[in-house]
């Protein structure tokens, strides 16, 4: 496929808009982000899209590629468009700003709303001793490296259905906080996740886990929260 041309359709506009069609040279090493870049440089100078790190760290380049939400800087064209046809749209479930860029504020706001770390120690104290093999720390390790790319948020239909739903990434973060032994009030973190729009709104569709580019499983984290909620309820806790 190194030679030849890609048939590329790109969404132009906001909520209202239309697809633009472009013929982009196919290249040996080419990510979807490279395709978008080439369209901006050669055909559509005012094309809006977002990227920063170009290595899958910043989580700002995700788009909908042929119907599937993905990070674009690490998506090789060959893997998603063997036929050489690409349809590129902004991510779902967020307000659109322009073309391929959407407003991530709602998503990140939900993320930040599940709770921010509050410990008991200060900068005067040494870091807490934490057994790296303890079950709680393992849970954290398995879920912590989220790049907040919103791919899961876009993939989840419940997010689309229920505007109050916090969504997989935010709940995944809540789960890591809940398992962080240093957090002063873990109970409050859990209570937050048990509110309407919290973990019980998830129906285990699993689309989040299926699409997470870094291989996290928000489904497992949310299930963990549900279990923690059950346990605390059965132990006669609040909620």
């Amino acid at each position, binding site marked *: 496929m190194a030679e030849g041309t890609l048939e590329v359709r790109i969404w132009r506009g906001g909520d209202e808009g239309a697809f633009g069609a472009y013929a982009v040279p196919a290249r040996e090493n080419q990510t979807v982000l490279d395709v978008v870049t080439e369209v901006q440089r050669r055909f559509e100078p005012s094309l809006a899209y977002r990227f920063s790190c170009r290595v899958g760290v910043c989580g700002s380049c995700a788009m909908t590629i042929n119907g599937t939400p993905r990070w674009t800087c690490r998506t090789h064209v060959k893997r998603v468009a063997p036929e050489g046809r690409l349809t590129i749209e902004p991510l779902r479930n967020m307000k659109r700003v322009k073309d391929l860029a959407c407003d991530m504020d709602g998503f990140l706001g939900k993320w930040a709303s599940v709770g921010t770390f509050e410990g008991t120690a200060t900068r005067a104290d040494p870091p807490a001793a934490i057994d790296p093999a303890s079950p709680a720390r393992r849970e954290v390790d398995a879920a912590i490296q989220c790049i907040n790319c919103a791919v899961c948020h876009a993939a989840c239909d419940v997010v689309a259905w229920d505007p109050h739903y916090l969504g997989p990434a935010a709940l995944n973060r809540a789960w890591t906080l809940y398992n962080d032994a240093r957090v002063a009030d873990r109970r409050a973190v859990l209570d937050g996740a*048990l509110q*309407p729009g*919290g973990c*019980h*709104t998830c*129906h285990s569709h699993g689309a989040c886990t299926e699409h997470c580019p870094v291989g996290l499983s928000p489904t497992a984290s949310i299930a963990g929260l549900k279990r923690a*909620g*059950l346990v605390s*309820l059965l132990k006669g806790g609040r*909620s």
Partner: protein
Amino acid sequence: MSEARLFLLQRLTALVMAPLVLVHLVLIVVAVQGGLTAGEILGRTQGSVFWGLFYGIFVLVAAIHAPIGLRNVLREWTGIGRRPIDWLMVAFGVLLLVLGWRAVVAVVGGGA
């Protein structure tokens, strides 16, 4: 009632129903063989304490389980407000309970 409590109730009722449904399914498949008559059904059930309990419990848990599930569906798929949905579901649960137990009484009690 809190989300956590509703969740617990729904999952608990689901757990209870799983074996009940299994039995019910087997029964249907076996019973329906060669057509179903009222006599057959009633013959099996009438006066049976076991089946009375079986279906009595079945109705109870289903009347808890279904409205909670329906509540989520309505929230997500319709524009109805949260409050109205909750009341609608309470009504639905009561309806199921009343109709269900009436059916149990009909099939198990009375008659022969």
